[in-house]
């Protein structure tokens, strides 16, 4: 199945849920609302034609100024069909808020560490995450969420503009 027909297939599968769909550098990319996040993910994994069993990448982007929230970008792929799909969702947040969304560790086991990283670096909480401790940062870290835009901490030296 080439990317275009795959995108059509997914669009058909979740006709009412998908907000936006496009091909980005030949990867089918869909955007869903946060409330449909787990539902879409698990159906993408289970559907025979998509069969997306592995996580390729899972990260967050701080779009609080532009779109008013954190965007989760999940790229998943299938060893069986050798294709991949990107799923996005926008978790609404303003200022220092720590928004919450359902976890996808129930769908993919390997989402565990990716989500832990997002929790500590962006401050997006995952409902039902089995082990929401710090992964990269020290246990007693209390300087906020460093990957948020405009964050500064005590030992953080910004490079002067040349």
């Amino acid at each position: 199945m080439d990317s275009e027909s795959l995108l059509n297939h997914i669009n058909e599968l979740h006709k009412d849920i998908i907000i936006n769909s496009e091909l980005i550098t030949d990867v089918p990319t869909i955007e869903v609302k946060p409330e449909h996040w787990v539902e879409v993910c698990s159906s993408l994994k289970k559907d025979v034609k998509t069969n997306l069993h592995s996580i390729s990448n899972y990260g967050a982007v701080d779009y609080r100024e532009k779109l008013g929230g954190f965007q989760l970008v999940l790229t998943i792929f299938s060893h069986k069909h050798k294709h991949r799909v990107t799923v996005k969702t926008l978790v609404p947040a303003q200022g220092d808020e720590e928004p919450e969304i359902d976890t996808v560790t129930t769908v993919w086991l390997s989402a565990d560490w990716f989500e832990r990283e997002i929790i500590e670096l962006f401050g997006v909480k995952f409902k039902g995450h089995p082990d929401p401790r710090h992964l990269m940062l020290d246990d007693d870290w209390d300087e906020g969420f460093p990957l948020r835009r405009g964050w500064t901490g005590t030992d953080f030296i910004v490079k002067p503009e040349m």
Partner: protein
Amino acid sequence: MMETKGLRTEEFMVNMGPQHPSTHGVCKLVLKMDGELVKEIQPHVGYLHRSIEKIAENRTYAQIVPFTDRIDYCASMNSNHAYVEAVERMAEVEVPERAQYLRVIMAELNRIASHLLWLATFTIDLGAVTPFLYAFREREEIMDMFEMTCGQRLTYNYMKIGGVNWDIPKEFVPKAKQFLKILPGKVDEYEDLLTNNPILLYRTKGIGVLSSEKAIEYSASGPSIRASGVRWDIRKAEPYAVYDKFDFNIPVRYNGDVWDRYKIRLDEMRESAKIVEQAIDGLPEGDIAKKVPMTWKPKEGEVFCRIEAPRGEMAYHIISDGTNKPYRVKIRTGSFCNLQLLPAIATNHLIADLVAIFGSLDIVLPEVDR
């Protein structure tokens, strides 16, 4: 059975690391042990978290390349390659063919170097010290070639957006040819020392079995998944650079134990040597880089691009907002997922096996922590 009434046994916790000879860097494994038996493993990482993703937000596209060297210091060329490939794909920059060939030559040489380094540390994990030094002997030859090309031994900063920074000197080709001639013999020598050694066989066969279902479920990649019977190599599946022009095989093995992961890397060294040989023979003349101005600004957009690094899939998700600095760079590495599956395959093994399994997964900690 011995009468154990009245004897009290106790499980105990042990911290393996962050400074431990066989965690290959600064990883902490919290083990729950029943005597020698490992009952529970909890990896703790982040001791080398260098916030490269944060730094990347404040650097121009060209300035990020040196940081990619340091993500996977055992295979810097491959990290470079992943990053420049991603940026070029996003901004649709054409790369001259000679540069593409040079990238492939360097990336594959670095794959051999990385596997040699892995072999060295893996044998040391099993208690054999001498093969370590033999593997390093060959690695030094590759380091020499890199050094004559770009002046560095470990962090090369060789590739740039639109091509490569330096052309190869004229001594490079004869040196590389000579190295490729001796390499298969040397790999056979390691096999003589290790593969035919019954102790190594006992230590590795049937240990730490990773089934193909589990490998897929945990998103494993690289040699670790290929040893479990999944034919997955991005060089073949989604050819980037000029990999589609070369004739090479993807070694696949089916048992998924430590032994298979060991054998597959030896086979991969031979295959990589084949690619380098073909690339050197077919190296076209021409420019080594397309001119990209200092104040270069790609148009708005995003890209997700992945390549096959020695430790599995290495991918960059880059978002551009139209300025000269990327809005967000997310780095996905092979070791990050491969370390995650360690508890799944190493529990209920002896501690000596845990060391062997950890070694066989070929984990480099800065790749996990970034």
